[in-house]
């Protein structure tokens, strides 16, 4: 889809997370890693929350994790979602530790339970934006 016709919310202009979106566009799921103490955290921030160092990098992760929770939105808080109700938002604990909010694709009710193994899928929703989303294995 051309970026100009994409009507759902875009990433905010947070300077720390720009690399996350650039990696996602290239099919890599990354979290922030502290160069000094190795702490892995997400979403990205200006300093390491464990040791306060400024030097941090983005580290690719396996894209595997477990499903912690999920909800179905029956209300469209943005007009762009009106045509997709209900849609599913999930909370995933990545194998490497950090948690991430995302969407579940190809939802199968019989597989939907806390602790289910999930894997990332890179969903190019527009020419400019790729959303890392998850599927139950």
């Amino acid at each position, binding site marked *: 889809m051309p970026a100009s016709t994409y009507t*759902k*919310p*875009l*990433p*905010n202009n*947070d300077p720390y*997370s720009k690399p996350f979106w650039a990696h996602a566009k290239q099919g890599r799921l990354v979290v922030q890693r502290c160069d000094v103490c190795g702490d892995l955290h997400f*979403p990205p921030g200006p300093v390491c929350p464990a040791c306060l160092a400024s030097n941090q990098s983005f580290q690719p992760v396996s894209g595997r994790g477990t499903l*912690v*929770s*999920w*909800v*179905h*939105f*029956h*209300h469209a*808080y*943005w007009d762009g*979602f009106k045509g997709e109700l*209900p*849609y599913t*938002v999930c*909370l995933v604990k990545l194998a490497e530790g950090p*948690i991430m*909010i*995302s*969407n579940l694709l190809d939802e199968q009710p019989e597989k939907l*339970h*806390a*602790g289910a193994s999930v894997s990332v899928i890179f969903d190019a929703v527009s020419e400019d*934006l790729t*959303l890392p*989303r998850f599927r139950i294995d």
Partner: protein
Amino acid sequence: MSDLKELRDKFAIVGVGNTPYGNFPETDEYGLGAAAFRNALEDCGLKKSEIDGLLVCRIPYYARMGEVIGVHPRWTLTMPPHGRMSGISLIETMMALQCGAVRYAALIYANIGRSRRVTYGGEDASSFWDPWGFTSPGASHALMFRSHMEQFGTTTRQLAEVSVAFRKHALLNPDAVMKKPMTIEDHETARMIVEPLRLLDYCLINDGAVCIILTTAERARDLRKRPVLISGAGAKDDYHDASTRNFAQDFWYGPVQAVAKEAYGMAGVGPADIDALMCYDNFSPTVLFSLEGLGFCKRGEAGSFVEGGTLAVGGKLPTNTDGGHLSNSYMQGWGLNVEAVRQLRGECGARQVPDCKIVQFVQATPCTRSIIYTLG
């Protein structure tokens, strides 16, 4: 905070006031705040010239509030428009009274969200998770409640007990916004918002204001009504998951436990001594999470604990006897503290808890607070 124990019973709420609750496009935060302040002054008999501390919450400009009510204190604070600020404000005011910075503090909260059509999601509350369509504090509670269902087998019928009990109280409270009776079936068939939560799991959005006046227990003796003492207080913040607003992977169990230990320790009481609980209820699941953390039931057992009307007046643990945020008024914790005062004074009419001597307030949020009140 073990030295907080020295502050037990030293400070008191002496005056409370509120406005009607509803939709008031003809006024604003200052008009509502002034009316609540006037009522709180009348409640305690102080002159406004005696007020030397002013704390405002969800009011745009503290100095305009001072100008409007003609109060020019030596201590002023402004708190952000978050519900968790009610408990914080009361405890921090106690500290200011302790060190002598303030003699008589007026705390004013006003909310004009209904008539100004404030929303709590989408473009009004931008976050990192927007591109996935995740927004609104209610959605965070839905994520937590789903997790609670999965871990402990809690059901939405059990959750309904919270909304049903508080609606029952609202019907007994002349000030309350919601006047229609509610059954568990009504809850179970209400419109889905963010599943597993339905409309009746969400708090109201309404206009109104609350004022609470505090001073020392010693000065309180000279005022109009029997003082309500702060016998216990506890505090713990947890910002681990703050980028997901109103969310905690452990349902704030750890922080609520820590706060319970402090507050009960300071007051010298335990859960079995609590005659009424005033529990922050922006969304119904928070009540279940609070009950577990405070130790009213075991972890994971809040669903069965609330079954059969436990939280209603006449039940084992009367909770949010004014109707709470779900059915009385969205005064973000401030109204619940006023209700604690009125229950202890015996001013609650049809919803009065008999022989009410100890009332606890709790807010399970990223800033968890609890206050235990007794009659002076």
